[in-house]
C-alpha cells in the first residue's frame, strides 16, 4: 500500500523517513503529488540494514503543477547479507513549467554479501525545468580510516565516525532522542 500526500498551492511538506531496526518500516512506498503552484516538498530518508534485512523503498514525486519545488535526499548503510533498493521517480507533467526537482540517493556497502540497488528516474514532459538526480554507492574510505588510526582512534571508532558524518545531512533533521537511537544502532554495525 502506498502512502499518498497531496500538496495544494502554496503548501509545504517536510518529511523525514527512518528505516532502522526496531522501528516499523511502514512507509516504504510513498507518493507525493504537487498539485498547485508554490507547493514544496522537502523529503529525506535514512536506512540502516545491519544484518539480513531486505528493504525496498519506492518514492514517486509528481509535479502536476508548475512552479513547485521538490528536494529528496536518501542515505543508507547496508551490511551483513542485507539487500536495499531505492526506486525514485520524479514525474514532471506537460506544462508544469518552472519546476525545480532534485533527488539524491547515496548508499554504502559494508560487507561483501550486501547488495545495494538504485533506480533514480526522471520523466519530464516540460521544457522550462531544472531537474537533477544523483546516485552513488561506495564504501568507507580507507584513507580516512588510516588518517584517524594514525592519530590513535581505534578502527571501529573511526568507521563509526565515518558513518556518522555520512548520515549527518539526514540525522541533523532528527530530534535529540531519535538521533541518539540512530547513533546507537551505528555503533553496533
Amino acid at each position, binding site marked *: 500500500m502506498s502512502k499518498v500526500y497531496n500538496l495544494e498551492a502554496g503548501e509545504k511538506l517536510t518529511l523525514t523517513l527512518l528505516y532502522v531496526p526496531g522501528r516499523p518500516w511502514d512507509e516504504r512506498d510513498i507518493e507525493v503529488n504537487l498539485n498547485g503552484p508554490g507547493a514544496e516538498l522537502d523529503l529525506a530518508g535514512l536506512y540502516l540494514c545491519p544484518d539480513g534485512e531486505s528493504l525496498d523503498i519506492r518514492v514517486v514525486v509528481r509535479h502536476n503543477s508548475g512552479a513547485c519545488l521538490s528536494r529528496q535526499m536518501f542515505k543508507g548503510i547496508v551490511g551483513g547479507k542485507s539487500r536495499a533498493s531505492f526506486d525514485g521517480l520524479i514525474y514532471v507533467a*506537460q*506544462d508544469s513549467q518552472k519546476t525545480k526537482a532534485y533527488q539524491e540517493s547515496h548508499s554504502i556497502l559494508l560487507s561483501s554479501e550486501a547488495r545495494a*540497488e*538504485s533506480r533514480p528516474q526522471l520523466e519530464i*514532459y516540460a*521544457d522550462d525545468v531544472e531537474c*537533477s*538526480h*544523483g546516485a552513488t554507492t561506495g564504501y568507507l574510505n580507507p584513507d580516512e580510516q588510516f588518517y584517524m588510526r594514525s592519530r590513535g582512534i581505534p578502527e571501529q571508532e573511526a568507521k563509526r565516525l565515518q558513518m556518522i558524518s555520512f548520515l549527518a545531512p539526514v540525522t541533523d533533521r532528527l530530534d535529540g532522542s531519535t538521533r541518539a537511537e540512530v547513533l546507537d544502532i551505528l555503533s553496533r554495525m
Partner: protein
Amino acid sequence: MNQELKDITGQEYKEGFVTEVEQEYVPKGLNEDIIRMISARKDEPQWLLDFRLDAFRKWQKMKAPTWGHLDLPPIDFQDIIYWAAPKRDADRPKEIDPALMETFDKLGIPLHEREVLAGVKPKESQVAVDAVFDSVSVTTTFRKSLSEKGIIFCSFSEAVREHPELVRKYLASVVPVTDNFYAALNSAVFSDGSFCYIPKGVVCPMELSSYFRINASGTGQFERTLIIADEGSRLSYMEGCTAPMRDENQLHAAVVEIIVEKDADVKYSTVQNWYPGDAQGRGGILNLVTKRGICKGSGSHLSWTQVETGSAVTWKYPSTILKGDNSSSEFYSVALTNNRQQADTGTKMIHIGRGTRSRIISKGISAGHSQNSYRGLVRVNPGAEGARNYSQCDSLLIGSKCGAHTFPVIMNSCPSATVEHEATTSKISEDQMFYCAQRGIAPEEAVSLIVNGYARDVLQRLPMEFAVEAQKLISVSLEGAIG
C-alpha cells in the same frame, strides 16, 4: 520564420533518394522455407542453416519487449521481405553496378581505392569500407592491403565461406540467440554485415567502416556484424547508415558482436542517420538493435561512441561485459530527436573482473513532439573488487511538447566498488540566446551552436571524418525546432 529558413527546413533529409536498380527478392513473409531460401541464396553451410532454423523456432515462442518508453507501431512480421539484393549484370558479373557506385558516391562513401592510391586524396584519410546495400555487401575496399597485415575485413557472407572456423567460434558468443526478441529474429534471418578480425599485436593501419543503405521498399534489413580483436591489437571502426524517404515504416534489426582479447583496444563509432519519418511522424526506420561487446582478456578496452539523429524509433543499448581484470569501457552518446521521433537508448556495463572501470556520458536532446529516454544498467558483481563507474546523463529540452527521461539502474554487490550516477535536465536559457543575438547570431544558428557545445564531450571522441559530419547532422536535424 523567413523564407530562407523555410527553404532550409524543406531540405529535410538529403539522403532520402531511391536508387533505380533492378532488384531480386525472396517472397514476402517469414517461415522455415523462407529461411532455407535465404540460406540457399547465400550458399551457406548446413551448420549455419541449422543455427538459423533453431533461432527461428526459439523466436516463435518469444514475445516482443514492451518495457521501452516507446509507442511502437505494430509490426506485421509476415508483411516484410526479408531478403533483397540488386541483380548482378550477366555480362559483368565481377563489377559493381554503376548505379550502386553512384549511390554511394552521392552519399559520400568512397568506394574508389584508385583515387586515394593515385594521390588524388591524401593518404591519411584512408578508410576501408564495407558497403551493404539492402541485404548484400556490394564491395569491401582495401582488402588486399589489409590482408598483408593479416587483417581480415570482408562481408559476413564471405567470412562464412572463407573463415568458417572463426565465425563458428564467435557467432552468438556475446549475444546469445535467445538474448531478446529482435536478436532472435536477426539470428534467424540475418542477411549481411561486416566481419573483421585483427590478429595478435597488429595495429590496424586505417579506419575500418561499414555503410548500410536500405533501398528497396517493403523490406527489412538484418545486419550482422562480428568484430574480433586478438591479443594486443588495435582497431577503430565506424558505422554509418541512411535510407530513402517513404511513408511506410521499415525495420532494421541488427546484431553487432565485439570480442576484445587481452590488451586489445577497440573503438566503435556510429553515426546513425536512418530516415526519421516526416514532421507528422509518417514513415521512418524502426531501429531495433542489439550491440554488445565483451572485454574478454585483462587490460582490454572497448569504447562506444554513438551519434543518433535518425530513425522514427530507436531501441538500442550498446553494452560491454567487463570480464577481464582491469579491463575498461566507455560509452559516449548523443541522441537527438525532433518532430515525432522516439529514442530509448543507453548502455549496460557489467563489471565482472577485478579493477574494471567504465564511464558513461550520455547527452540527450529532444525537440518538437519527440520523446528521448536514456536507459542504462551498471552492475557490479561480487568479485569485481575495486570496480569503478561514473555515469553522467544530461538532457536538453527544446520546446514544451517534447519529453526527456532518464531510467538508470545501479546494482552494486561489491563493497570495494564505487558507482556514481548523475543526471540533469535543462533547456537552452534565454541568457544564452540573448548573448548570441547580441552578437548577430541568428536563432537557428545559435541553437545549433549551443547544442554542439553541449554535445562536445561526445563529438570530440569521434574520428575526424565523422565529427565534422556529425556536427552538420545535428544542425540539420534541429532545423525547424525553434520558430
